[in-house]
């Protein structure tokens, strides 16, 4: 849960988070809805340029893509076989459908483009700035809280887990494949759940003691600089161009 890409001084990192959230959302919607292969292929370089500008570690980016593409791989096993229409190849009862392959190709391009887009724009922003940006953009409070507290508590749970594991290790615990190990892990998970729920209760109590009534106010205000406006215009133009290519009827 570390924010691997969040720290940095590149122009992308310093961009106003509101700009990033808006562009990431627009880009994701356009890519998710686009059908045209030309559009999808032209969508991929967009996040790649941003990632290059942000000077993110390419290995770490590839590692993230690998996770997504593992899921996509399953689709490649299932969809072309399950689809009807335009048999590409057939082995006895199994038909490889041309339609299915096209669908898979589309899904692969779309998911990679969207994940790259999120890495370039959202992962380069600390979560708290994202939350603030969302609030400034008047997104529903509940949604914002959900994101914020998910992140906050996942971190707490992770830290608690680290502590418990250390406490086990200093008492010479070594995982083996025996009942003792399984039982110890079960205890670890159980304790973790109890502790986390206790902790979250106390955090909430501390919040209501300070007058929290469901609204999370923002102390800092972002200020839109000229660079932000220029970057916004450039990125918006690219996304718009993709949209026009897909739906504008210009061919």
């Amino acid at each position, binding site marked *: 849960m570390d924010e691997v890409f969040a720290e940095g001084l590149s122009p992308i990192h310093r961009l106003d988070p509101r700009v990033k959230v808006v562009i990431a959302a627009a880009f994701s919607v356009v890519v998710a809805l686009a059908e045209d292969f030309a559009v999808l292929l032209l969508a991929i370089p967009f996040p790649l340029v941003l990632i290059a500008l942000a000077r993110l570690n390419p290995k770490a980016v590839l590692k993230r893509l690998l996770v997504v593409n593992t899921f996509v791989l399953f689709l490649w096993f299932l969809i072309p076989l399950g689809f009807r229409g335009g048999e590409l190849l057939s082995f006895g009862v199994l038909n490889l459908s041309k339609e299915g392959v096209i669908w898979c190709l589309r899904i692969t391009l779309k998911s990679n483009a969207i994940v790259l887009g999120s890495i370039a724009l959202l992962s380069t922003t600390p979560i708290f700035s994202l939350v603030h940006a969302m609030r400034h953009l008047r997104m529903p409070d509940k949604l914002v809280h959900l994101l914020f507290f998910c992140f906050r508590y996942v971190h707490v749970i992770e830290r608690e887990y680290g502590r418990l594991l250390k406490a086990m290790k200093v008492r010479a615990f070594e995982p083996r494949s025996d009942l003792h190990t399984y039982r110890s892990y079960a205890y670890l998970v159980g304790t973790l759940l109890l502790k986390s729920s206790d902790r979250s209760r*106390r*955090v909430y109590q501390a919040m209501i*003691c300070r*007058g929290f009534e469901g609204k999370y*106010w923002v*102390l800092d*205000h972002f200020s839109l600089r000229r660079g932000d406006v220029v970057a916004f215009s450039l990125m918006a133009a690219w996304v718009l161009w993709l949209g026009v290519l897909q739906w504008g009827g210009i061919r």
Partner: protein
Amino acid sequence: MGRDPLIRLRGIEFSYPGREVLKGLDFALWRGDRVGITGPNGSGKTTLLHIMVGLLKPQAGEVEVFGQQRREESDFKEVRRKVGLLFQDPDDQLFCPTVAEDVAFGPLNLGKKHPEAWKIVRETLRAVGLEGFEGRLTHTLSGGEKRLASLASVLAMGPEVLLLDEPTAGLDEETTERVLRVLAESDLTYLIVTHDKEVLSRATDVVYRLNAGRLHRLNP
């Protein structure tokens, strides 16, 4: 209101499943009081503080704050605005990314505007000796700094009464000294739960011991 105590508890009974903690406890905190409460682990000291601000509801007894009976959650909303509770573990209290945001959390909830909230943040941080900590990330603070920051976050609400749950536990001498100085410089009514003998002798006028579910006065 002058005649009534700020906080009065009558016949408070509280038990956790399988364990009776408070058995008919009576207590009154008057304006200007500096009270210490000590007692064995698990005797219900934290429970007592949580009952005063309505985080826990006693099974029997009356909670009266600022001269009014408090029963429902809505009764306690006003209480929490004026009675500041400092939690035992600062990690429970600090949840915002930066120190400034955490200190401003209360004032913003109370409807303060931004310039005013910032002013409160700066003043409160100066009062606890954390000048210049505004932009620091809360989770990277040292134990002592966390304690002072969480104290600031409570003081920023401008409470009339402060309830402190082991405010000096685990602190070094210097930070303990700072906490004591903050208390001495404030003209707040406060109640400290602590095992620290020095804190009891230096910062409180009256000391009670919580034992067997009731409070027993230790000094005359």
